[in-house]
């Protein structure tokens, strides 16, 4: 990396945030780290309270002050904000001039989240990806690698979050060739090109360089299905090939297959080893990367904490119980999304329950929280949201 390391906007007020996010061992644990985490959270809370009138009022109405965050046990009392809130309201903790990037989420309902990032937040989050790739030994900068990207062929001004992510994923291994699966049709739209993907994979297999496949898992699945339907023989990609998915099955929920089935399909048709097939979980409202371990579980990295909350009472639940997935992390300075409740249902599990050996807990996503449509003939909110108004 030739750029400067990312710096928090105020190195005094956010010193602990800097220190926490500089920590390069993604899945470390320990008392010291917990204390550092709380210190960073205290600074983060104070930062947003001072800069976002909405957040200040939220804290005041709850009678909460940053000093209350002494240990990680106090985190559950920190007032939270639902990701859905950001879909309807722009809340900034930085002057508009400091906005480095703003992203819209590629959600299925009509409303999109608008999240604003300053330079620190986005680059800090990207560096976490660097740390994780390094942890798994995937940083092979000098090794020419072919890429098949299941994402949108870029165009200037195109703001979809996942696309942005994928572009910078190319830096960990030298680019030999890049093939995009969702071709830009030239009039602002994209079209999935399965034939192009198959041809690319075939030529990659022949060329014999390691292959990296990133992006939406749905189109990977469609490609493999098309290969099977066309009778294309299974391919053998280089053994250091890597697949890393993200973005979920958005828009293709009806055709979603379970992960084990998809991974078996990949292993069979492309000969990628199972422990090099990984999924990633992330969202525009919370950019911390959650990457599957070798056993395909999402372990929580050192820079965040995950809590599960009861869908009726909002009480924090222990291991093994399903509820709202919520993330706490002081990495974000542009918007007070440091304690965000997602629209997903999940459950948290103890680290011992995963054989990969990582020391942090992991979470399993169970699906969306809530309904996209009512069972009765009364219209549901999500349906109304899809209407252009």
């Amino acid at each position, binding site marked *: 990396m030739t750029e400067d390391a990312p710096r928090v906007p105020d190195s005094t007020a956010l010193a602990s945030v800097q220190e926490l996010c500089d920590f390069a061992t993604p899945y470390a644990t320990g008392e010291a780290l917990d204390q550092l985490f709380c210190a960073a959270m205290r600074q983060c809370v104070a930062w947003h309270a001072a800069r976002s009138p*909405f957040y200040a*009022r*939220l804290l005041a*109405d709850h009678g909460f002050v940053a000093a209350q965050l002494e240990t990680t046990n106090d985190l559950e009392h920190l007032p939270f*904000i*639902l990701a*859905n*809130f950001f879909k*309807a*309201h722009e809340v900034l903790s930085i002057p508009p001039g400091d906005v480095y990037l703003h992203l819209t989420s590629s959600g299925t309902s009509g409303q999109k989240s608008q999240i604003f990032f300053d330079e620190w937040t986005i680059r800090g989050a990207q560096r976490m990806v660097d740390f994780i790739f390094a942890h798994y030994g995937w940083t092979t900068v000098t090794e020419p690698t072919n890429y098949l990207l299941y994402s949108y062929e870029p165009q200037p001004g195109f703001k979809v979050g996942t696309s942005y992510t994928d572009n910078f994923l190319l830096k960990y291994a030298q680019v030999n060739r890049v093939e995009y699966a969702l071709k830009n049709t030239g009039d602002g739209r994209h079209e999935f090109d399965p034939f192009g993907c198959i041809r690319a994979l075939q030529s990659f297999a022949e060329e014999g360089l390691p292959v990296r496949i990133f992006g939406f898992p749905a189109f990977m699945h469609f490609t493999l299905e098309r290969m099977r339907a066309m009778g294309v023989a299974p391919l053998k990609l280089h053994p250091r090939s890597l697949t890393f998915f993200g973005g979920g099955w958005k828009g293709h929920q*009806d055709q979603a297959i379970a992960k084990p089935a998809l991974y078996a399909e990949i292993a069979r048709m492309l000969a990628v080893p199972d422990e090099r097939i990984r999924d990633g979980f992330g969202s525009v409202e919370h950019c911390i990367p959650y990457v599957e371990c070798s056993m395909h579980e999402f372990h929580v990295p050192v820079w965040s904490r995950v809590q599960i909350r009861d*869908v*009726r*009472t*909002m009480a924090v639940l222990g291991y093994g119980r*399903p509820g*709202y997935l919520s993330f706490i992390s002081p990495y974000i300075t542009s918007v007070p999304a440091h304690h965000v*409740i997602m*629209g997903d*249902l999940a459950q948290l599990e103890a680290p011992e329950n995963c054989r990969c050996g990582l020391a942090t807990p992991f979470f399993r996503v169970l699906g969306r*929280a*809530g*309904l996209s*449509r*009512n*069972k*009765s*003939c*009364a*219209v*549901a*909110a999500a*349906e*109304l949201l*899809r*209407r252009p*108004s």
Partner: protein
Amino acid sequence: MSQEKPHLWQGQWLADSEFEARLASLGEVTAQALAEGLPTARVLDACAALGERLRESSAERQAALGILQADHGLAPAEAVAQLEEIAAFLGRDGLEEKLRRELGSIDPLTPTRIGFRVDAFECYAPLGILAHVAPTNAATVGSLSVVEGLLAGNVNLLKTGGQDSLLAQHILAALGACDPSGGVARHIIAARIPSRDEARLRRFLAVADGVAVWGSEEAVSELRRLMTDDVRFIEWGPKISFAYVAASHAADPATFAKLADEIILVEQQACASPQVVYLETADKDELARFGARLAAALGVAGARKAPPPLSSAEQAEITSVTEVTRLESHLGLTQVLTDAAGSYRVLVDYRPALRASPLYRTIWVKPLPQSEIVTVLRPMRRYLQTAGLACRSEDYAALVTAFVGAGVLRIAELGSMLSSYAGEPHDGVYALPRYAQRISLQTGATLAGVAALGQLLPPQPTVPKQRPVLTKAEFQTAQVDDAFADLYFKSGGSSGDPKLSIFAYDDYHRHMLLAARGLYAAGLDPGRDRCMNLFFAGGLYGGFISFFSVLEMLTARQFPMAAHADTAEVVRTIVEKRVNVLLGMPSYIIQLFQRHADQLAAYRGVEKIFYGGEHFTPPQCQLFQEKFGVALVKSATYGSVDAGPLGYQCRASEGSVHHLHSQLHGLEILQLDSDQPVAPDETGRLVFTSKVRRGQNLDRYEIGDVGRWVADECACGIKEPRFELLGRHGDVFRIGTMFLNYRRFVDTLGDALGYAGEVQLVLAAGAVEELQVLVDKSAPEASIVARALLARDHDLWEAVEQDRLLRLTVRQVPAGELQRTPGSGKLRGVIDLRIKGGG
């Protein structure tokens, strides 16, 4: 029926593998059923029968209640209420009302003349094979939609969801079983197919001509993907409803009680349940206060009914919306009001935009001044359904105008948002026309005289009811429900005390329509004829009034003269106004022609006479033709006040041969002295069974006339059965060990002697029974009359001359001496002095 056999295929239960095997024949099987046709009356009968079964303690009721409780999780009382809703929908009155309002007729599939001066027929026809893709977990929507499909004559394919119960299949199987002909069952296939099973769903729906589908736009577009573009989609999309409280009612305690009831009643699950309450205000504090009072009312009302258990997804939806609203309160945009237990949520939102609530006692409270109604609601136009209003009557019109302008489809009183009436449009349309197509026939003059195509087809045989013959006396004593007692007419009949016949307006209109068709078949030409209505009016008599209605329905030119005493004025009008058709009773008409013979003979403009009540004799008809130029003399209708029109003459009918109004009645002809059907040529008693009569039973009603079947086909082309009237049962009398018929005497005197006057028979007891024949002065001398009678009737000759069992006398008397019925003035044919009260 069982979980192993979840598919209903034309009355049979099939397992998955069996269903799969049958799918290949779906096209053939449905085409056959469609070709068979499905008379609407049969569907109505089956529905009425099922409705009754579901209300009594039957196997069907028990099974349905079982499914509602076990699979739908309803409490016993709720299950009973749900079943009652289904039974109420199936009731005959409600379905007939629905047919009338939505398709214009309770016989919508029969091509019918659109007017009597136009040679065009119209009717509805089924769309064909109609598929219904039921909403998941809404228990009865799918099966009731199939009932609507059946009413329009369609073959119906119902798809229920993979997780749904078998309630729909069960109800439809029971419905099919309620039609003995099996036709209804053959028009139903109900299959359980999960939406994911695209291949099977595609095959199932491939034969459909139309698809009724519920659900979101997403669900609908997924279905469209599976089908070709030419299939008609009938979308019953998701809807949103709201309450509106005018400022005048913002402080009324009743308003809050009603709101709480609407919200709690079905936990807002109905499309007509309110998801938002709008208050007529722009003031935040006022809105907040209103919200607080509503919260209090919900607390009170909610305590009486426990909230239902929610799925985790439903609960998560509620919590998400509530928590976001709570966050927005820190922006000053909202207020969240809830109780400690979280049993309700009042979400006060100062922004007026309409939005959906996650239901289950979650209600938005928003501001909406009247002037902003259209602009605020406009973006949601496609989803708007019901507005529940609480306002003053003077504000009602303006508010309704605003809501309708915004796109609201239903406006109800607050407190009654979930009620509906038979035939009410649903989501802005009538369902039945959407499940049908409108057919037109241009016939030219080919079908002159025919009013409905059904007349040209052999009628459906009716199974006689198993009950004793109903006499006039019994019919008269039966009670009629006030709901069906609209019109009261003096009951007809030549003898006895006049009683009243009672009709619902619907029956009256139906009767008059059929009588109009009868008159049309008999030769009245509404395009050309100028008719004078000479029937009697007043004193509750129905004659003039009913023919007024008949001529009005025919859109025939009418001079409503009635049996006016000033016959000179009547004839003057006939001549001056070039009247060519007379309708009335023979006695009056005869008087008219006798008193003003010269004028009418000179005029020769009366072309047609349609008579009612008594009959004209052949000599009388001949006289009309020769002297006055009357070319056509036919009965206006054959019927009685009690039973309505029973039969009609056509252009080809002679004498007293009539076609049966088979749309209204079934006819049996029973032997004179037993209740067995007659032999083909045998004279017997006419017994009618009414097919359509509200609130009264006319099953096997003995009209008092005798007649016989006429088996050969009629030259006019109409295939409704024919019968010949042979007089009153009272015309038939027993004397001297024989049955004699009064009519026979009249006809004999007419044929043999050209006698056109009145005849009365008096029966007396004595050493030997005596038969007195009374004739008027126009008859020849008594002995000639007697000789003519004996010569023509061998039975009579035997009894009188040979066996000396009977004494025959003939007397000439003045017309005034003849006995008549008090009231109508009709001549009494037979006076039986042997029986008490016969004199």
